[in-house]
């Protein structure tokens, strides 16, 4: 069997490992436009802040390709896929054939159309090269003994991780966010406010409900024009308003839905023998009951793993997709998953939602669980993350919580909170 995987990140690696669960011998070719060995994109902020060195960005050991019998074509691009001949044409001129093909090209930063942004000190922050460029700029500022100032557009995960890293690199940082709160997709109002004040204590300035309209000035001294009319001075800017699927324009006949490549629960696309997984694909969100891109690492890896098994003739499926995030800012950890803020209209319509919260402002803790028909559908654990995975597990389990509901927020929530039989069933299964 001849497997070709386009993409070298979580989904691609998941696929390699998925294939090898079933097929030890088939040929695997991985094609990536990046030159890098398998590295972890979420770690670039740790690299930028100096918390981890370059060598530790590796997601798999140096001998990963060798051990898994992978031929890696790095720094190359797929120009065209010809499903009829099962062949690929690469930028380098090389031609590759496949029996099973996986598209795992991930996402790419979404850059809103802004005037004057072509300046060299406006960055994205999703790839290792972005971190490298930022580091070069920071180094340059230091050499010139300029006290650096940065403006970040977007208070999402990427924007805030960039903000933290830049603060640690001794820059002054202002985050501009269109929404009225930070991390609006994964935190509710209370949690966002708590985290915002924590970030402010560590030096991050926020301008909320505003956005950037234009970059002016020169490359060393940017002038950022805000929609509200204000102007910010800075030495560098990071645009982090979101990512979108990186759908390669390489073949017709693939159904592209609202956002990504449409796949079923087996990760098959509309084309025979072509699979897709990860941030490029629209998988199934079990909580929302619809297909959507869930651009998160565990999701990408799992989809890749399932795709790999199916490419190798297995019968795997993945229908446990839902949003989930673990992230820390200046030592304050947050874990959230699922539906954390049911839409007001659903709450008003009494759609079976129930929301429980607890917390302590002084200790900067906040816990929230969201139930639907007495089943776990989401939670926020802010600065109280220990054992949060049990809640994630409950979301997957979709089981009526019964009396367990009353224990969910308690400080010593654990398996003792479960009914004995349920506990035994779970602990002996592991």
């Amino acid at each position, binding site marked *: 069997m001849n497997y070709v995987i386009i993409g070298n990140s979580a989904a691609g690696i998941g696929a390699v490992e998925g294939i090898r669960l079933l097929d030890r011998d088939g040929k695997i070719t991985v094609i990536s436009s990046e030159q890098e060995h398998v590295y*972890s994109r979420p770690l670039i902020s740790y690299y930028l802040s100096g918390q981890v060195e370059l060598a530790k960005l590796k*997601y798999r050991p140096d001998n990963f390709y060798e051990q898994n019998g992978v031929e890696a074509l790095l720094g190359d691009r797929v120009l065209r896929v010809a499903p009829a001949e099962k062949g690929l044409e690469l930028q380098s001129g090389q031609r590759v054939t496949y029996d099973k093909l996986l598209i795992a090209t991930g996402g790419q930063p979404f850059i809103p159309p802004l005037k004057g942004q072509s300046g060299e000190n406006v960055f994205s922050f999703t790839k290792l090269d972005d971190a490298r460029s930022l580091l070069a700029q920071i180094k340059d500022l230091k050499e010139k003994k300029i006290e650096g100032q940065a403006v970040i557009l977007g208070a999402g995960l990427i924007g805030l991780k960039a903000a933290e890293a830049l603060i640690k690199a001794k820059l002054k940082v202002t985050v501009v966010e269109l929404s009225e709160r930070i991390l609006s997709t994964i935190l509710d109002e209370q949690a966002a406010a708590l985290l915002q004040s924590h970030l402010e204590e560590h030096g991050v300035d926020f301008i909320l409900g505003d956005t950037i309209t234009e970059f002016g000035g020169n490359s060393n001294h940017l002038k950022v024009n805000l929609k509200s009319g204000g102007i910010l001075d800075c030495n560098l800017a990071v645009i982090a308003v979101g990512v979108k699927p990186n759908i390669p324009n390489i073949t017709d006949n693939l159904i592209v839905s609202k956002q990504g490549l449409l796949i079923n629960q087996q990760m098959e696309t509309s084309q025979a023998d072509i699979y897709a997984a990860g941030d490029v694909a629209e998988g199934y969100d079990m909580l929302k009951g619809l297909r959507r891109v869930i651009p998160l690492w*565990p999701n990408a890896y799992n989809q890749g793993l399932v795709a790999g098994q199916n490419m190798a003739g297995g019968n795997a499926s993945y229908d446990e997709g839902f949003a989930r995030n673990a992230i820390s800012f200046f030592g304050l950890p947050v874990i959230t998953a699922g539906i954390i803020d049911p839409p007001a209209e659903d709450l008003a319509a009494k759609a079976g939602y129930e929301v429980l919260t607890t917390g302590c402002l002084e200790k900067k803790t906040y816990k929230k669980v969201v139930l639907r028909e007495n089943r776990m559908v989401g939670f926020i654990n802010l600065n109280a993350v220990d054992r949060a995975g049990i809640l994630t597990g409950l979301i997957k389990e979709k089981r009526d919580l019964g009396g367990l509901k009353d224990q969910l927020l308690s400080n010593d929530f654990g398996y003792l909170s479960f009914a004995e039989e349920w506990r035994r069933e779970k602990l002996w299964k592991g």
Partner: protein
Amino acid sequence: MQESRREETLRMKRIYALEEHCLGCKLCEVYCVASHSVSKDLVKAHKTEEITPRVIIESSGDTSFALQCRHCDDAPCARACITGAMQKDPVTGIVSCDSERCVGCWTCIMACPYGAIRRDKYGRSIISKCDLCAEEGEPSCVSHCPNNALIYKELEANERGVE
């Protein structure tokens, strides 16, 4: 999630807790720390080394039990790990975390349905979890439990309640 894989990759011994015999004495925790110390000396391990126990003891009233990583077949922690530090060994089945590569992002804590992964007690950005005392043959918590409340064995699939 439904999966396909070769049969032999699922066989391994695991630790199971017998609640009815657990005293909640926490000796498992004490010996876990000693086993994972550099000195391998119980007193020095506790007095001079900063080691987070890899076992969690839940206790309330008369009921208590020790909980260690279940070394799940599908190891959601390893699949969620963003650094590759958390790995399930395909031969032994042991899920272990390489603290050199762990950055303390806590994604595994988000993923572990047993809540069996702990953050380092001493503020380092690393996690701590059971490795079944891979180097010692039998997990230290099991061999030191004063009341045989922990067993280390391979259960048949039906005993574990999985298909």
